[in-house]
């Protein structure tokens, strides 16, 4: 059995390791170096500038706007998605067909979702204004994506629309693993359905909810594709939908400020990492074990 073991291991792992080192590890390592330089991509030299890129971030109005907008996405999207998904997964017990339908948007590319929702929000021929017209609420009609106060909320709606179904399926699977006797016992004891949900269901599926918070939190720090395709500018109007990824992309591939863009990448990485750590800590609690 030992014969040829190392030859096999080297043969099997050389290609994937080389691929991973060249296209994943090396860019990540280089990004941390470039973030401390003024590299513009054309000249061969990248001059070290210390922390200058990072201090510049704090006075860059676009980056600050992006930080605020990503912060708002972070406050709204995970909570709204999880509340809706919890409600629907509890309510669709026994009626699977709803889950099958709800799940579908999860399979679409964000780019496709963005194009679809851009059409929905179109002022004159869009679905939303057409709907408001049809139900007699034509005074509510808006040019949705052109209003600084509304545009980001429109992006959030598309985000939540596409995500809810996935978490319905995730939570439903977790809920189905809860033994029926537990529910029956609680019902016999006269517990209300609200109390059963709070005291039994939620604690027992808490791990799934925690996973959902982390995934949705990370998605809220992104938002690039939806904003880049849907919004005017992109990032507008008046920077009201600017997100960090958009700033990074623009600085790198429009302005050629590769050092500065890398600093944004490092900032995004640190924010993502601290968010994940924070959420893990904040939601840590006594594991509920079924004996």
């Amino acid at each position, binding site marked *: 059995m030992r014969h040829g*073991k*190392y030859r*096999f*291991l080297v*043969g*099997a*792992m050389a290609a*994937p*390791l080389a*691929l*991973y080192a*060249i*296209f*994943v590890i*090396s*860019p*990540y390592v*280089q*990004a941390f170096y*470039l973030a401390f330089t003024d590299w513009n991509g054309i000249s061969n030299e990248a001059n070290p500038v210390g922390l200058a890129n990072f201090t510049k971030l704090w006075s860059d109005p676009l980056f600050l706007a992006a930080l605020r907008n990503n912060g708002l996405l972070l406050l709204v999207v995970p909570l709204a998605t999880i509340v809706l998904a919890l409600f629907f997964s509890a309510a669709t017990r026994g*009626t699977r067909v*709803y*889950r099958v*339908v709800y*799940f*579908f948007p999860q*399979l*679409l*590319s*964000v*780019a*496709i979702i*963005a*194009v679809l*929702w851009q*059409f*929905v929000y179109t002022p*004159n*021929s869009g*679905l939303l204004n057409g*709907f408001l017209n049809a139900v007699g609420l034509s005074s509510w009609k808006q040019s949705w994506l052109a209003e600084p106060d509304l545009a980001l909320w429109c992006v959030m709606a598309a985000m939540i*629309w596409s995500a809810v179904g*996935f978490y319905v*399926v*995730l939570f439903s699977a977790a809920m189905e693993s809860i033994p029926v006797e537990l529910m029956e016992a609680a019902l016999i004891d006269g517990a209300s359905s609200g109390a059963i949900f709070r005291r039994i269901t939620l604690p027992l599926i808490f791990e799934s909810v925690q996973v959902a918070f982390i995934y949705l939190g990370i998605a809220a720090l992104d938002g*690039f*594709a939806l904003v880049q*395709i849907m919004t005017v500018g992109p990032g507008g109007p008046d920077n009201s939908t600017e997100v*960090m*990824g958009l700033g*990074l*992309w623009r600085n*790198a591939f429009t302005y050629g400020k*590769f050092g500065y863009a*890398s600093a*944004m*990448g490092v900032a*995004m*990485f640190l924010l993502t990492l601290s968010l*994940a750590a924070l959420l893990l800590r904040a939601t840590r609690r006594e594991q509920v074990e079924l004996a």
Partner: protein
Amino acid sequence: MKKHFVLTIWAAVVTLPLVWAVVSSFKTDAEIFDSPWSLPASPQWNNWSRAWSQASIGKYLFNTVIVVGLALVLTMLLGSLMAYCLARYEFPGNRTIYYTLVAGMLFPVFLALVPLFFVVDNLGMLGTYHGLILVYAAYALPFTVFFLHAFFRSLPTAVAEAAFLDGASHAGVFFRVMLPMARPGLVSVGIFNLLGLWNQYLLPLVLNPDPDRYVLAQGLAALAVSQGYRSDWSGLFAGLVIAILPVLIGYVLFQRQIRAGLTAGAVK
């Protein structure tokens, strides 16, 4: 009854934009502008043919099939080999390699974006099929290895040992014994990767600047963004529906496996 009312409303919220896009793809531009709710007077099939050929959706679909298909094969082959070696063999550096790979899942792709562009550029692979395929596979590797590592660990060892006693080689045991045993895991992670790769947007946007090589999501987004200049609404709707259709058909055929595959990935 109240419960079903609420559930039906959300079902309508989910399906209405999609149904509306399908209906609009058969209308004339004038009908689209006239009323978003009306049905087409007669179905405009030429919207579809215009989207397919003039708007290049057909070409984008072809590019996507090539890139995603080959990237998926490469990811599954390299990922399962890597996971198997790490899960079933003791050797110095095993843990280090595993954690380095898995750590790749913690980093946002945005962080790598700038240097990655230059790595691909320096290799002369910008805007090529093989460049995109290699990058797709490299970024799909961490999750694939992470998932299959756990799967190979959970398989019994007796069958492989018997095969070794019968004189099978290491590669023979992997391809003839272990890989067939790992089929359920391969299917789950394969579905997960197929959808992930099919839906890529950021990587092709940066690494694939040649319009002749655009993938579907990228090409459609480019059409929608530039739509202000030469507007062909009905054609765009048709393009959008063509892009959604393969996913919808796949979902109708394999909905159970797809939902199981995607959610299994999340709980791990």
